[in-house]
């Protein structure tokens, strides 16, 4: 081959360039030199062209609609399905990471049978025969334990269980039992309502992490952003009532640092004020309601909750001011204690008293949790297992050995079952207890469906053929094959797919008017499902439970167990993206930590990262401390999701499982597991602990990177001195800092005289166009001669800090799109994170009362006057004619000067070879490398990389437009981050197009530029966060 010469020359030059023989180790290998054609060309696959498959996300019970992007038969990216009612195009970090579940290198490779303490691989036929025999012999003493299934899969499992004489139990740790129980009691409807944040003008959350794990986080985030966009007339106010400020709470204007477990009192106190002062709408039940809450006077509440009486009244009046348009939410895991149901009931009462039920609390599209076992039922099941009720047990899609506390004795009882079969695709804790593992195919490679909310039937379509290295089968196929082997017959189809199609006949009857089934099926598969507008079920007050004042537990610390935005209940812990994604509260990665108040830490004599021992009556763990002002001094918080003892290389032996600290306890009314309410002793630990912070400093040091604009300034209009001109900086108190001297007009800042009809070259356009310019007119950046004259676009971004809630979905989207390597905890701690977009968290005011936490999505700003460009000696970074700050990896020598000169520190350097399979630092072990985007170069050791504004997508979009011989449409090209954002905080587009959305936002009244005084003229414009005044002075 002609290239042999080239390679030897390259090696030679390498040696010459270095001058030492050591470099010879880095010789380039000749590329793979065989090409394999398709045997038969698939109709729908053309190499080099992406295909999109609509499907359903199965990472949590919400089931958002997704679109999977596939290239050359490999799923490479997941995005939200914009047409789907659940998610509406957004997708959270967990959903996007399901790709790494599919390509998990630790997936079970084939059916396995336990052989002592090890596993023996067997064939499917052997496995089916063996298990079928046991199933036949069990004769009804069989258990099928699954996670939440809905739609056809649930029907198949239930029918199968019925036919085989087995019991089908569905179990989810986050089962909304308290919400269902409370709604059953107060409204007579055991359902999880839809919270219409978009209709609300004021929200009070009683510990519900509705932007993280509670309810439908993605849809709720969008609604919440819509609410927060309103600011006239005091609208958009959000109050977080919780002992530990969650990520959701960080978005609040006001943090009411209530005593742990006493949230209920505040809700009732607010209701009491509203009802007694008659601030709400006229209600027939007013008397009954008032009598239920009469004991909860502001004074009584103040004693129970640590919230001042006048604050109780103020909050009640604020809430009532927006009667019918306000919304109180409760029911998350962070408040699931002994009085969880009572709390939800109290909040229901509050909502009802303010007339919100039916306007912001809707039962039109409740979560479908039908058939889910309650914790009490689960407990009973465990008892039966121990009692020998089952000879054979099948487990699929749930991992109780990890996700239930030890006191439930699941593991022991499960161990007594004679023959245990796991249908899990990964070797999780429960699978590790089993005798046989028959791996199920991942949701992205198998057919299925879900009906996760009323009126929505979503289809789950395989985006690719099952991965060849994993000999797995869809669960349905396994069940059917087992039934055949055990001579069990039923009404199901020959395969799970046939069965699915057969069951969708019902939907065809409902939606398929005038279409054949095949046509209906094809269209439904393409759309991702069918849905209808669901009418709201109106409810009336059904009666309140007897509210008791929360038990006052004194001494020690309240243990707050928090659900994880990254891992949910722990099921995401085996995905490196989610481990590497910083927790947006502490900005820590890859482990566990306990959040304690700095004053508590001082008393204990610990600092950030020092070990502390948390001891409850159930056990003790040693974790690094994270000093967090967003937690009460009498509380300690520990996150769920880590501390796996199995589950693959990324999850195993990282951090601790908070469940180990839970003493026996349930919510009295619903029987739900009490995550909260434990009291813990704290002591200084002795071990050396790793606290891996991706961002250590959370104070802005008055640098005004993430800016706010007070509502008063905004209301003064776009013309007042407060309006969104960045020449004057807003201080925390809403005052105006004096003009920065560096942007002050001076000798060389005469107004720029431009000839009539002057059009600046596309690349130099920035929304940064102040009236004065700190440059002499002669020094306008030149057009790159004829090289840039065809440029019509200036790609730019507008980021609305008011909409960003710090969910970090964009970060994972960027990892997926741009082949960003995961580097592990030690390197992150050193400051060697590779992410192209990060979300900086600034805690400007934290500690109860007025709350000011700001999230700043930070990426390459694509400056028109980029400091990085002029320092690169080899033109590896330069400005494209369309305004992008280009980075040419293969030209990069790695002087790293660009990063040193980047004021935004948006550039990451490949310190090691993350892309070389032979190196220990390889970041994409097979088959994780299948996920790599073929349109983006995988960077090698020693080169700089950074956000490209997804230039591959820009080129693809421009190419599509040229293929179709048309102009580009605004919004046609979306970057990975802007596409994924559940709140649409990121807008991407062409700044040179005056009609574009990004133009409108970039020149809007809240615009500003980060570090504007450096005159980098960024292409990324930020919109200031709207700050609402609050009189709460804090008392945590």
């Amino acid at each position, binding site marked *: 081959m002609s290239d042999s010469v080239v390679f030897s020359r390259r090696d030679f030059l390498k040696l010459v360039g270095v001058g030492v023989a050591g470099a010879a180790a880095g010789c380039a290998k000749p*590329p793979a030199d065989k090409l394999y054609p398709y045997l038969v060309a698939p109709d729908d696959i*053309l*190499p080099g*062209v992406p295909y999109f498959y609509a499907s359903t996300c199965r990472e949590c019970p919400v089931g958002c609609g997704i679109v999977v992007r596939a290239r050359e038969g490999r799923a490479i990216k997941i995005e939200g399905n914009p047409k789907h009612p659940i998610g509406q195009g957004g997708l959270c970090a967990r959903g996007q990471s399901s790709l790494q579940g599919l390509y998990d290198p630790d997936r079970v490779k084939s059916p396995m049978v336990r052989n002592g303490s090890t596993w023996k691989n067997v064939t499917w036929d052997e496995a089916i025969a063996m298990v079928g025999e046991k199933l036949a012999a069990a004769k009804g003493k069989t258990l099928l334990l699954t996670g939440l299934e809905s739609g056809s899969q649930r029907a198949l499992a239930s029918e199968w269980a019925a036919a085989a004489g087995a019991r089908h139990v569905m179990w989810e740790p986050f089962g909304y039992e308290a919400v269902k129980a409370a709604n059953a009691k107060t409204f007579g409807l055991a359902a999880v309502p839809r919270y219409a944040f978009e209709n609300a003008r004021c929200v009070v959350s009683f510990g519900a992490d509705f932007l993280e794990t509670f309810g439908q986080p993605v849809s709720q985030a969008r609604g919440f952003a819509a609410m927060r966009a309103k600011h006239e007339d005091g609208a958009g106010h959000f109050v977080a009532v919780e002992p530990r400020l969650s990520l959701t709470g960080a978005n609040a204007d006001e943090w009411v640092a209530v005593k742990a477990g006493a949230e209920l009192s505040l809700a009732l106190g607010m209701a009491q004020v509203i009802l007694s002062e008659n601030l709400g709408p006229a209600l027939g039940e007013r008397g009954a309601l008032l009598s239920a809450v009469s004991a909860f006077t502001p004074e009584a509440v103040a004693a129970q909750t640590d919230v001042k009486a006048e604050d109780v009244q103020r909050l009640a009046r604020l809430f009532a001011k927006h009667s019918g348009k306000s919304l109180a939410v409760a029911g998350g895991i962070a408040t699931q204690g002994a009085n969880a149901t009572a709390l939800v009931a109290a909040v229901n009462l509050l909502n009802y008293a303010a007339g919100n039920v039916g306007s912001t609390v809707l039962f039109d599209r409740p979560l479908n949790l039908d058939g889910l076992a309650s914790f009490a039922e689960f407990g009973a099941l465990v008892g039966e297992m121990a009692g020998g009720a089952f000879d054979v047990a099948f487990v699929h899609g749930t991992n109780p050995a990890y996700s239930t506390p030890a006191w439930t004795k699941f593991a022991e009882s499960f161990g007594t079952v004679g023959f245990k079969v796991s249908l899990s695709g990964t070797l999780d804790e429960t699978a590790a207890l089993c005798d046989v593992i028959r791996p199920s195919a991942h949701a992205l490679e198998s057919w299925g469906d879900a009906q996760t909310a009323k009126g929505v039937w979503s289809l789950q379509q395989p985006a690719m053929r099952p991965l060849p290295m994993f000999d797995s089968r869809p669960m349905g196929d396994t069940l059917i094959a087992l039934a055949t082997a055990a001579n069990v017959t039923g009404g199901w189809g020959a395969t799970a797919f046939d069965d699915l199609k057969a069951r969708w006949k019902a939907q065809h009857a409902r939606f398929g008017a005038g279409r054949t089934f095949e046509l209906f099926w094809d269209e439904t598969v393409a759309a991702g499902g069918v849905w209808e507008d669901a009418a709201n079920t109106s409810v009336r007050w059904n009666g309140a439970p007897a509210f008791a004042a929360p038990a006052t537990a004194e001494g020690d610390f309240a243990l707050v167990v928090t659900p994880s935005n990254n891992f949910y209940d722990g099921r995401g812990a085996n995905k490196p993206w989610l481990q590497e994604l910083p927790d947006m509260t502490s900005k820590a990665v890859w482990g566990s930590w306990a959040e304690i108040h700095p004053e508590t830490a001082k008393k204990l004599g610990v600092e950030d990262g020092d070990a502390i021992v948390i001891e409850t009556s159930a056990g003790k763990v040693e974790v690094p401390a994270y000093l967090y002002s967003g937690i009460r001094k009498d509380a300690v918080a520990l996150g769920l999701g880590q501390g796996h003892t199995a589950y693959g290389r990324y999850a195993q032996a990282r951090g601790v499982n908070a469940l180990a600290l839970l003493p026996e306890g349930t919510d009295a009314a619903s029987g739900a597991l009490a995550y909260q309410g434990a009291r813990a002793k704290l002591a200084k630990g002795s071990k050396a602990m790793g606290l891996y912070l991706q961002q250590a400093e959370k104070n802005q040091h008055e640098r005004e990177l993430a800016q706010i604009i007070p509502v008063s300034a905004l209301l003064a209009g776009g013309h007042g001195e407060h309006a969104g001109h960045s020449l004057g900086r807003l201080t925390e108190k809403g005052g105006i800092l004096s003009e920065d001297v560096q942007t002050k007009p001076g000798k060389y800042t005469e107004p720029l005289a431009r000839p009539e009809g002057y059009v600046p070259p596309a690349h130099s356009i920035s929304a940064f166009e102040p009236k004065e310019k700190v440059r002499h007119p002669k020094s306008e950046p030149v057009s790159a001669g004829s090289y840039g004259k065809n440029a019509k676009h200036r790609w730019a971004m507008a980021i609305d800090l008011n909409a960003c809630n710090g969910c970090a979905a964009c970060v994972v989207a960027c990892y997926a799109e741009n082949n960003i390597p995961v580097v592990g905890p030690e390197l992150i701690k050193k400051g060697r994170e590779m992410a192209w977009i990060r979300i900086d968290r600034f805690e400007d005011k934290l500690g109860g009362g007025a709350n000011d936490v700001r999230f700043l999505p930070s990426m390459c700003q694509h400056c028109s006057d980029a400091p990085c460009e002029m320092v690169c000696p080899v033109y590896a970074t*330069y400005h494209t004619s369309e305004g992008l700050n280009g980075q040419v990896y293969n030209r990069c020598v790695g002087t790293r000067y660009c990063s040193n000169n980047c004021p935004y520190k948006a550039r990451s350097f490949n310190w090691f070879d993350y892309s070389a399979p032979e190196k220990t630092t390889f970041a994409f072990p097979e088959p994780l490398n299948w996920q790599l985007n073929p349109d983006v170069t995988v960077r090698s050791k020693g080169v700089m990389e950074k956000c490209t504004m997804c230039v591959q997508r820009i*080129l693809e979009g421009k190419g599509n437009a040229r*293929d179709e011989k048309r102009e580009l449409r605004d919004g046609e090209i979306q970057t990975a981050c802007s596409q994924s954002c559940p709140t649409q905080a990121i807008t991407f587009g062409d700044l040179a197009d005056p009609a574009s959305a990004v133009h409108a936002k970039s020149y809007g009244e809240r615009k500003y530029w980060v570090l504007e005084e450096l005159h980098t003229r960024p292409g990324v414009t930020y919109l200031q966060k709207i700050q609402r005044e609050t009189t709460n002075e804090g008392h945590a």
Partner: protein
Amino acid sequence: MNKTIAAVLVFATLAVASVALSQSFSVPMGANKGPAQPIKFSHKIHAGKLQMDCRFCHYGAYKSQWANIPAMSTCMGCHKIAVADRPEIIKLTGFWDRGEQIPWVKVHYLPDHVRFNHKRHVQSGFQCQECHGPVQEMDVVYQYSSLKMGWCVSCHRQNLNDQKRPATMDCLVCHH
């Protein structure tokens, strides 16, 4: 004697230097010999003698960024019947019957950090032969052009101001 040696040395140095300099400026062409393929498929017969359109088999070239290698079903479309008795076709049928892929040997090499978009060039009206050379005359296909950066850039420079198919000199178009 010494003078002669000195003169030879000086001359040799100058010669080497000028060759090196001219090499570094010049745009070398590719090889004119291709690798042996598992089946002696002749473009000379198909594209030359039979005048088949390149896009009949390599249809990806104008629809995708990559030109595809035809699926074996494309070959068998004709060769189930056409000249099925020739030894090379028997080899082909053998692969097909066994359900095996033909391990074609890669001819054109482009480094991993370069992205070449076939459809952009084909849609702009380029003939395949402009880059791939006289394929219709090749019994064994070889890499006609060097596919080195200077080769790409020279053509892009020439067509920079072409009204119909303006080329770009933007680095990111090929390197991203």
